[in-house]
């Protein structure tokens, strides 16, 4: 069974859970460091998601998107 895909909402939800656990002061050192490491990963994921919708609005028409996708499908080796 594969892990569910990470989304912004699952990431922020887990991050809040981690911070609550750390705030409680009940986590011992090993758990604290593990939680901090996991939390940093989640912060990076969320920041990347926000960056993806923060670099300037890109407007295109449906036919342009379709053309772009078809061009991409025709040239799968092209990294652009």
């Amino acid at each position, binding site marked *: 069974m594969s892990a569910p895909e990470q989304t912004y909402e699952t990431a922020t939800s887990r991050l*809040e859970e981690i*911070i609550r656990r750390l705030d409680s002061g009940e986590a011992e050192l090993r758990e604290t460091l593990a939680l*901090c490491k996991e*939390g940093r990963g989640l912060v990076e994921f969320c920041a990347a998601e*926000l960056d993806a919708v923060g670099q300037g*609005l890109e407007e295109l*028409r449906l036919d342009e998107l379709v053309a772009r996708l078809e061009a991409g499908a025709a040239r799968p080796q092209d990294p652009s």
Partner: protein
Amino acid sequence: MAEAATQRPDGIAGSSLPGPFPVGAYAKKLQEELRKRARLQLVGEAWNVKRSKARVYFELRDGDGALPCAMWNDAWEKCGVPATAFADGAQVVVAGGPDYYPGSRTSSPGFSFDVSALRIAGEGDLLAQVDRLRRKLDAEGLLEPQRRLPRPVLPRTIGVVTGESGKARDDVLAGLARRGWQGRLVWAFAPVQDRHAAAAITSALQDLAATDQVDVVVVARGGGSLADLFAFCDETLCRTVALLSVPVIASVGHHTDRTLIDDVAAIACSTPTHAAEAAVPLHCSEARLAIGAGAGRLADHARRAVLGRARHLAQLSRAPAQVVTRQRARLHQLLREMRASARRRGLAESGRQLRGNAAALERRAGVARGAGAASRQAKLDALGSALGAHDPERIVARGYAVVDDGEGAVITSAAAARAARRVRLFFSDADVRANIEDP
């Protein structure tokens, strides 16, 4: 004037028609004749609706012809038709009859259909039709699937189906700007009013979903009559929306309008701006601040976890040395107190003995003072000196030492010293402890 009216010109030569008659009389006659015609109801689309202080004017049209209509304001108000519903293109039923305003030398004549009552036609029929379809889709469970679809709080790509020239387009952009969202926006322009609208919108939705690139779709259109919005009640369109794998947010008409797409969509919003905001539930700027704050708190916890524990470990490592130092200081203090106590006890004992001896001597001296006082005094002085020579402090000052068993009992013999094993030697300046070794 009267004279002019009676002097009629000759008619047209060769014409067999009667006259000429004065036009005003004929106009009035025409008015009377038209008003005699049967009053009846007509149906058609209202166009060019205009309102004046006294009357409402419009044209009633269908594919074969048109009539200018006029309605007195009091009759209009009695009908109770909402002003928004009576817009250009509205299908209406009117009751009334033909009329003619004969005009005068200073005003133009006019023909109109005098409307005494009006209702929006087809509205009830359309509403009933929509309601039947809604019940049908509900019975098939098609009002639920869209609501069950997960909607991302931060979509990367949003599809928008709307009219290319409508205001809805600007409203969607305004809503996205409010959220601080700057992702990818895919416009799927389609007619939103004519008879081709439903098919075009359906096709646009299917094409958007087929790209597999769009996280959410907004369908937006401004207000209009139910007839205008009827495309969004199309059965095929609504079935397509219901079964689409991408969540659809509908914003069709004003907040008072309710089309069938509102019922099958994931969310129905009152304006395109709200629809855009619903497509991006997250406020991106606030989210960036919140994520930054979360990162800060994580860093604090990590730093505190390591530094706090390191500090604690350092305290623990220092603890044994501190305990030893404390105990050593306490031992020294106890030792000092013990020495002082022993010294006080030894001196007090010696003093008591001396005072006892002196008192006894005093008593003897008193007895002996009667005879040979002088010789006795001399002897007494000698005894006093001898006694002074036995003062323990003076003896100790001369290099002797007082020995006790450590508990204050004076040891006066080697046997007692051997028995005690550990003894204490009092010198003039301090005392020391010593172990007795058996010979």
